[in-house]
C-alpha cells in the first residue's frame, strides 16, 4: 500500500454486542505481537448484555503504549447499533478514515460530522459469500492486510483462537478472513505501522488478570467475593487458579459477607483478598474497619467505574479515591495503592499483599475499568524480589499479648493451632492483651501503634514513578499515568522538559519523598479523571505544595488523553 509509515495507529472496530468486535481486536493484538509491536485494546460497551453497542478501541505501536491516543486513524463499523452512545469515545478528524457497510444504513451524524473520509464496503455481503461467514473476520482480514501482518501467521492465530469451538467455526472464520484480506480498498489508509518491532518477549493480558496474578505472587490463597462489573473477570481468573495452588475462592452472598470471610480466613493465617467496585466497596467499609482495628491483614482490589451510586458500571473513572482514602469511621490508618498501568497491576497488587501481611494492615488497591478490562500487549514484566518480611508470627513461649506495644508497631500474631497463643481478636478498643478497654491510655496507645506501623515502614522509591526534569511538574495517579507519561515524552521531544510524578502509594502519604521530587518546581499541574478534583484535594491535604497549582480534572467516561495534557502544559507554561 502506498502509505507513510507511522509509529502508532489507532483503530476502532464497532458493532453490536455479539458481532465479535472484541474477538477481532484481540486477534489483531496477537498479530501485532508477532511483528514485535506493542498495543492496547480498550473495550467500550454499554449496559446491554447482547445486541447493545460495542467497540474495540485499539492502539498498535512500535513503542510501549499505556493509553489511548487523542484520536483514531480508522473506524471500521460492522453496524451502527447505538453508536451515538459512544461516538464521543472515538474522536475522528478529517485525517481519519471510516470503513462502513452501506447495508448498515446511514452513518450517524455524530460520526460523519468529523469530516473523515468514508470508504463504503459491503462487509456483510462479503461475509455472506462463504458458508457461515462472519463480518468481524472479514474486517480482521482487511485490517491485517493493511497493517502488513503476515498472512500465514494470522491464519495460525485464528486457528488457535477458535480451536475450542470446533473445526467448522475455524474454517468459516478463515474463509471470511480471506475475503477481507483480498479486498482492495478504494481509499487505502494514508499511513501504516512501520515495521521493525522489538523481539523482547511479550505478554498479552488485562489489568484484571494482572491484579489477579499480583495477588497470587503476593501469596494470596483465599478470596471471597461477590460479582460486580468491572471486577468480575479478576475473580473469574482467580477462582480456578487459587484452587490449583491449594487455595480457594468463595462466592459470597454479598459484599458484607465477602469482606468478613476474607478477615476470617486471614485470621486463620491464610493471606486473603477480595475484589469489587464502588458500590461493593461501600458495603465493605464496616468490615474493612474491623480489619484495621483487629489488625488482620486483608487486601481489597477496587476496580473503579463511573459514579456516584450505580453510576456508569461499564465506564472508567478515578472517583473512588475519596472512599478509599477516607471511607472508614474513626481514626483508621490503612494502605491505599493505585496501579499505574497493566504491568503495574501485577506489581502493585503483589506489593499491597506483601505490605498488608508484613504490617498486619488493611489495604485497598485501586484499579479502574479502563485498566481492568483493556488488554495490553506489553514487555513481559520482570519479577522483582521485594524485601518485605512475611507476617510476623507469634511463637509458643511465655504469656501472649496479641496487641503488644512493639517499637515498630507490629505485634506478632498467633494463628489458631498455635498452642499457647489463644486470644480474642477485637474491633472494640482493647488493651495489649486484646481485652476490651475504654481507657484513654489504651486507646491512645493502640491508635499510636496502628499509625506507627504504617508510617515507620520504609516504602522506598516505589511510592511513585518519577521521570523527567524541569520546573514544571505533572502530578497524577493510577491509570492517568499512561496519558501523562506520553504527554511528558511528547513535550520532551518538542524540547519542553517537565517532571512527572505518578503516585502509586497514596496512604500513608510520602511527604518527604514528595518534597524531594518537587525540589525546584515552580508550577504543578494535577491530572485526574474526576469531576470534584478528589486527587487535588488529597494532595492539598497532605503535601506542602506551595507553588502555583493547576488542575486538569474531568469525569469519565472519556479517558484523559496525552494531547489534552500537552495542551494544558503549553497553555500557560
Amino acid at each position, binding site marked *: 500500500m502506498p502509505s507513510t509509515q507511522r509509529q502508532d495507529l489507532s483503530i476502532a472496530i464497532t458493532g453490536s454486542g455479539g458481532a465479535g468486535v472484541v474477538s477481532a481486536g484481540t486477534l489483531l*493484538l496477537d498479530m501485532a*505481537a*508477532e511483528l514485535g509491536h506493542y498495543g492496547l485494546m480498550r473495550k467500550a460497551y454499554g449496559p446491554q448484555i447482547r445486541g447493545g453497542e460495542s467497540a474495540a478501541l485499539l492502539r498498535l505501536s512500535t513503542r510501549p503504549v499505556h493509553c489511548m491516543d487523542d484520536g483514531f486513524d480508522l473506524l471500521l463499523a460492522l453496524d451502527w447499533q447505538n453508536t451515538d452512545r459512544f461516538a464521543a469515545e472515538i474522536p475522528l478528524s478529517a485525517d481519519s478514515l471510516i470503513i462502513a457497510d452501506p447495508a448498515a444504513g446511514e452513518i450517524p451524524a455524530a460520526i460523519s460530522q468529523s469530516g473523515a473520509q468514508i470508504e463504503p464496503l459491503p462487509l456483510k455481503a462479503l461475509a455472506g459469500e462463504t458458508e457461515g461467514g462472519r463480518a468481524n473476520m472479514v474486517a480482521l482480514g482487511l485490517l491485517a492486510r493493511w497493517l502488513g501482518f503476515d498472512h500465514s501467521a494470522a491464519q495460525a492465530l485464528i486457528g488457535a483462537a477458535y480451536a475450542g469451538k470446533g473445526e467448522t467455526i475455524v474454517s468459516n472464520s478463515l474463509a471470511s478472513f480471506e475475503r477481507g484480506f483480498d479486498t482492495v480498498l478504494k481509499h487505502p489508509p494514508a499511513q501504516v505501522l512501520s515495521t521493525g518491532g522489538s523481539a523482547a*518477549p*511479550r*505478554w*498479552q*493480558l488485562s489489568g484484571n*488478570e494482572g491484579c489477579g*496474578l499480583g495477588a*497470587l*505472587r503476593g501469596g494470596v*490463597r*483465599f478470596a*471471597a467475593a461477590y460479582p460486580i462489573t468491572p471486577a468480575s473477570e479478576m475473580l473469574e481468573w482467580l477462582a480456578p*487458579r*487459587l*484452587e*490449583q*495452588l*491449594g487455595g*480457594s475462592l*468463595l462466592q*459470597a*452472598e*454479598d459484599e*458484607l*459477607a*465477602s469482606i*468478613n*470471610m476474607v*478477615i*476470617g*480466613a*486471614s*485470621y*486463620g*493465617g*491464610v493471606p*486473603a483478598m477480595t475484589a469489587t467496585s464502588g458500590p461493593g466497596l461501600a458495603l465493605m467499609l*464496616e*468490615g474493612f474497619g*474491623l480489619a484495621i482495628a*483487629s489488625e488482620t491483614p486483608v487486601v481489597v482490589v477496587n476496580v473503579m467505574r463511573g459514579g456516584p451510586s450505580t453510576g456508569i458500571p461499564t465506564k472508567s473513572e478515578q472517583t473512588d479515591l475519596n472512599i478509599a482514602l477516607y471511607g472508614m469511621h474513626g481514626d483508621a490508618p490503612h494502605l491505599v495503592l493505585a496501579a499505574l498501568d497493566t504491568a503495574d497491576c501485577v506489581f502493585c497488587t503483589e506489593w499491597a499483599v506483601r505490605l498488608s501481611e508484613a504490617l498486619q494492615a488493611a489495604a485497598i488497591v485501586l484499579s479502574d475499568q479502563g485498566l481492568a478490562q483493556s488488554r495490553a*500487549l506489553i514487555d*513481559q514484566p520482570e519479577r522483582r524480589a521485594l524485601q518485605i518480611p512475611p507476617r510476623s508470627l507469634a511463637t509458643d513461649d511465655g504469656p501472649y499479648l496479641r496487641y503488644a506495644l512493639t517499637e515498630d508497631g507490629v505485634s506478632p500474631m*498467633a494463628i*489458631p*493451632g498455635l*498452642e*499457647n*497463643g*489463644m486470644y*480474642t*481478636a*477485637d*474491633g*472494640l478498643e482493647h488493651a495489649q492483651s486484646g*481485652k*476490651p478497654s475504654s481507657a484513654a491510655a489504651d486507646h491512645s496507645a493502640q491508635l499510636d501503634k496502628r499509625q506507627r506501623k504504617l508510617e515507620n515502614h520504609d516504602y522506598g522509591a516505589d511510592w511513585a514513578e518519577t521521570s523527567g526534569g524541569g520546573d514544571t511538574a505533572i502530578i497524577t495517579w493510577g491509570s492517568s499515568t499512561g496519558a501523562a507519561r506520553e504527554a511528558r515524552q511528547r513535550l520532551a521531544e518538542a524540547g519542553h522538559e517537565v517532571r512527572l510524578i505518578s503516585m502509586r502509594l497514596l496512604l500513608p502519604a510520602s511527604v518527604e519523598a514528595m518534597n524531594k521530587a518537587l525540589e525546584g518546581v515552580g508550577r504543578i499541574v494535577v491530572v485526574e479523571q474526576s469531576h470534584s478534583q478528589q486527587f487535588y484535594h488529597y494532595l492539598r491535604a497532605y503535601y506542602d505544595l506551595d507553588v502555583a497549582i493547576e488542575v486538569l480534572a474531568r469525569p469519565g467516561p472519556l479517558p484523559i488523553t496525552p494531547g489534552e495534557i500537552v495542551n494544558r502544559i503549553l497553555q500557560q507554561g
Partner: protein
Amino acid sequence: MEHTVKVANPIKPKQYKSAIKPVWCPGCGHYAVLNAITKALAQLALANEQVALLSGIGCSSRVPAYTSVYGFHGIHGRALALASGLKAARPELTVLVAGGDGDGLSIGGNHFIHACRRNMDMTYIIMDNEVYGMTKGQASPTTAPDWTKSKLTPHGTGLRPFQPAALALAAGASFIARGFSGDPNGLARMLVAAIEHKGFSVVQALSPCPTFRPEHMDWKHQIRAFEHDSTGDAILAAQRIQADDGQSTGIIYQRELPVWQPITRNSGSIDQFEQEFCV
C-alpha cells in the same frame, strides 16, 4: 471433623474459661450459655488451640473473650461470614459461632440463611433473649408482637416473631436444636451433638435477659423438653416447630446433607499461569 484429644484424664470446663470477668448483668442467662459451651468443649476434650469461637456484637457476642480458645469478636451481624471464611481456609479447626437474636436474625439474617444453605461444618449458637440487651432493650425479630416496653415500638412491634428453627429448616440447615440456659447440662449435651454433627448446626439457646425482659425469669417454669426425638424428615420437623409454642427444647431436626467445603488441590504453579500470558 477430627477432634484432637489432648489428655486422658477428664478435662475440666474451667480449662476453657479465660480470666476476664464478664460484663453481663447479675442473673443474665448468658453466663449459663458460656458454661454450657465450656462444658461441651471439655466433654469433647478438644484442644483449646484447635477451637475458634467467633461472634458479632451484643451482650451475648461478648462470649469469646470469656473463653480460652481462639476468639474473634467481630462486628454486628457478620459472625457467620467471618466463620465461613475461617472454616473455608482452615477446615481442620472446630469452628463455633455465638451471638444474639438481634445479631443473628435482624442485621445478620442474610448470613444466617446463607450459612444454613451452605452447610459448612460449624456450630451456631443463637443466644436468644427476645430483646436487644446491649442497646438497652429494643425488640428483636423473636420478640412477641405485644411487648410494649421499648420506646422505639411503644405499641409493640405488631409483627409475628421469627421462629429461628423454621427459618433454619427452610434455608437448609442440617441440624436444628433448641436449648435453655436454665438447663446448662442439657444445653451442653446438645452442643456436643451439634459439634459432632457434620454440617451446619443451629442451636437456639433461650437465655433470659433479667434486665430488660424480667418476665422471662419465668421461663424456668415454662420451658420443657419436646415430646419427640429428633427427626430427619423436614416436613415432620416443620410440623413440630409450628405446633410448638417455641418453648420446647431438644434436637428438632438432624440429617446428613452434603457438607460444603471449597474444592482445592495442588496441581498448578504461578509460573504456569504466567505462561498463559505469553504471546
